[in-house]
């Protein structure tokens, strides 16, 4: 297969675009397309300060790399989850994020969950008994809380995450299967800022996961290849596999699923509920917005953990 631009041997073939590119032209194409999506969805400008959530994985490190190449002011945020599972998962992720930041002379903020909240994610999950025996729910809640706190406290205009199209299509698939109207209404490349909530953007939302892997490999970005030990058997991976089967039989199926959804949402398919109970209130502890008066979900979880620990220590 030949590169469409130069006729040399292609390294990447994107069947959904009927486009094959060599290494050199692929590494040009990805940042160009990212810039196009940033502008199309009005994510941010070159004057704004961006906080990139960096996990040490291929997507977030590639996103950081691309934004810097495009000349944006992008700092990183690494959240140490304290997941070991016999493979030093968090330690290795941290090392790779740190290494990338050092090599490119970039600023990386680090929040260690155990240091800040007393316990690593698996223990917080176990003690709080959220998430049916898996720490993913507590992990998601904690990451959302910390990302928003750091973005707000350190004065960033926007929080960027490395979600790719497969991530988005899998979430969309799940929310469609359960017709979760509220979630469908909020899903998109940009979640605008609200009182106490930073603007969230997903500049890679139109790239396939395979394309981001190709970008990281061709660019020589060292990322954590091992899967999070707790992700094994997860619903999101199951949905991704189903969607890849569809894509294999019908190239472009994933992209069409996501893009037609965005168009449908834009044209008003999902209406905002006119419900006065949906107003947000500041959490009485941390000040972040929450749907019910009092503590937010995160602070309730931390309070529950602290209560249980004090009961144990008083025994």
């Amino acid at each position, binding site marked *: *297969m030949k590169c469409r631009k130069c006729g040399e041997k*292609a*390294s*990447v*073939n994107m069947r959904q675009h009927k486009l*094959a590119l060599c*290494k050199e032209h692929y590494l040009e194409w990805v940042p160009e397309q990212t810039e196009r999506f940033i502008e199309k969805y009005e994510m941010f400008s070159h004057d704004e300060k961006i906080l990139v959530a960096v996990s040490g*994985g*291929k*997507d977030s490190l590639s996103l950081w790399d691309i934004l810097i190449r495009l000349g944006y002011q992008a700092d990183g945020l690494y959240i140490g989850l304290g997941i070991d599972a016999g493979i030093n998962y968090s330690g290795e992720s941290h090392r790779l994020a740190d290494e990338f930041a050092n090599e490119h002379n970039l600023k990386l903020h680090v929040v260690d969950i155990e240091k800040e909240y007393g316990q690593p994610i698996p223990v917080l999950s176990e003690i709080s008994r959220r998430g049916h025996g898996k720490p*993913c729910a507590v*992990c998601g809640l904690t990451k959302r809380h910390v990302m928003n706190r750091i973005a707000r406290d350190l004065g960033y205009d926007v929080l960027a995450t490395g979600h790719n199209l*497969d*991530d988005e299509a*899998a979430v969309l698939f799940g929310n469609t299967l359960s017709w979760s109207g509220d979630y469908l209404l909020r899903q998109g490349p940009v979640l605008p800022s609200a009182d106490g909530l930073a603007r969230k953007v997903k500049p890679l939302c139109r790239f396939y*996961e*395979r394309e*981001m*892997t*190709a970008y990281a*490999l*061709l660019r020589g970005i060292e990322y954590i*290849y091992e*899967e*999070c030990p*707790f*992700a094994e058997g*997860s619903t*999101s*991976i199951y949905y*991704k*596999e189903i969607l*890849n*089967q569809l*894509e*294999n039989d019908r190239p472009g199926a994933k992209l069409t699923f996501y893009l037609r959804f965005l168009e449908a949402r834009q044209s008003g398919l999902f209406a905002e509920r006119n419900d006065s109970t949906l107003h947000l209130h500041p959490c009485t502890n941390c000040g972040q917005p929450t749907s019910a008066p009092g503590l937010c979900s995160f602070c309730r979880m931390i309070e529950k953990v602290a209560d249980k620990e004090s009961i144990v220590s008083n025994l």
Partner: protein
Amino acid sequence: MARQGVSLVKLILRNKEFEVKPGMTLLSSLQKVNVLPESIIATRNGEMILEDEILKDGDVVKLIAVISGG
């Protein structure tokens, strides 16, 4: 295991290894071992290769899983 005198193509995906006959395309080889092309990137000697690549005697192809999640 390769039979004596017959060279095979080795495909490695995480901790699994598959062997296929040389002379097939990467796409046919992946179909043979039931790996979805959408879910991997194939490299040989550190270079990415595409589905139309003919695999030769003794090739070792590393399949890099692309799906992550949680």
